[in-house]
């Protein structure tokens, strides 16, 4: 196994997340109690998903510019890992919601937006499946990917800030708006010390998973790709 510096960094970061994340003393905020530790797992999922989908977007654009099928494979694998992160984010979020808001699903605008995001990218996979010609598949799905990304960003970034939400950062959030992902100023210094490694650890893990799948997919489609 090739162990690059960023893979080692990923392992260290996730090790920190899983040990310190469970051991450090956390501030008790409202009815969150110890469940606030989920912050190191739930929120990084969304950072990871955004990061992976942005990479997917970048490779789709690269494909349309160069017509190199390699980039299309990159884009699709990053999108697939993005979907996995999205589903994990929904799952961790639902469990957290059960213990703090009382229900697994409470039709919070952010929950809806996140679910739609997963649907959008599942549609991307369906679209890829429905086309058989490789060049056409790559071109059409790249176009859809770019279009979907630019619809998705306002959906997740702007919409939840405009309506009332149970998540922090909604219109009536405790700290009056701000970044929905970061919970306003309620994050204390020790938590922040774990949180950022967690974000990058999960993101790097996502890239790692995708890169393995990309290598596999490149081998499978070796005869299609002209270097």
């Amino acid at each position, binding site marked *: 196994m090739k162990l690059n510096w960023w893979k080692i960094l990923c392992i260290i970061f996730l090790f920190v997340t899983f040990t310190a994340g469970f051991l450090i003393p956390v501030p008790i905020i409202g009815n969150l109690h110890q469940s606030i530790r989920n912050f190191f797992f739930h929120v990084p999922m969304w950072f990871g998903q955004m990061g992976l989908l942005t990479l997917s977007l970048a490779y789709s654009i690269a494909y349309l510019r160069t017509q190199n099928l390699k980039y299309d494979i990159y884009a699709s694998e990053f999108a697939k890992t993005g979907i996995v992160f999205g589903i994990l984010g929904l799952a961790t979020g639902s469990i957290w919601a059960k213990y703090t808001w009382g229900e697994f699903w409470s039709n919070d605008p952010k929950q809806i937006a996140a679910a739609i995001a997963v649907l959008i990218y599942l549609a991307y996979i369906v679209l890829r499946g429905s086309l058989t010609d490789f060049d056409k598949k790559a*071109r059409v799905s790249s*176009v859809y990917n770019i*279009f979907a990304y*630019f*619809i998705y960003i306002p959906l997740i970034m702007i919409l939840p800030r*405009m*309506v009332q939400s149970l998540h922090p950062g909604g219109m009536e959030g405790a700290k009056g708006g701000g970044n929905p992902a970061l919970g306003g100023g309620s994050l204390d210094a020790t938590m922040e010390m774990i949180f950022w490694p967690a974000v990058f650890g999960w993101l790097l893990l996502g890239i790692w998973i995708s890169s393995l799948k990309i290598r596999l997919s490149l081998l499978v489609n070796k005869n299609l790709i002209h270097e």
Partner: protein
Amino acid sequence: MLELRQQHTFFGILLYVASTIFVLYLAMGQPESTVYNGLFWMIQLFVCVNAVAKSFMQESQGRMLYFYSIVSPVHFIISKLIYSTVIMLLMVLLSLVLFRILLGNPVMNELQFIGIACLGGLSLSLVFTLMSAIAAKAHQNAAIMAILGFPLIIPQLLLLIRLSKAAYGEVFREGAVLQIGLLLTGLDLLVIVLSIVLFPFLWRD
């Protein structure tokens, strides 16, 4: 270069709108405002799928080739966008009238509602034009269109439903109506720009 030559489809859609709303009336009578609002936008969504989706799917391979040889893709997509917006606006106005006649009128601020409905028709038709272009590539598959388009349209639809509550007399935070309206307009502009940028890539075959 538009489909005026296929007038039966146009009248088909008109009939589709009218009969759907009539069936709704028979089933529901005159519903209260929340239901009215929800029904109105659902009808718009399905009309749009039926009306705009046709714009690419009914083009035969040969005719596309002909267009390909006479116009640039940018002009082609712009004309398609204009055409589907006009069709959709007609449909929106028609269904507004029919809703008014058959399902009663819980709307307090009529002008505002008409404005919102037109904005909504615009958003729907713009998104579905490009989706239809994509779906047409996927073997003229109508199911693909729904799979691709529905998740993408939900955010705008939610905003529209929320916004139109303003016309039913719901009190909003000051400036919120304008804010949502501007956001929708911004999204529309974004969709137009994306369509123009992306369509030339779809076009090549």
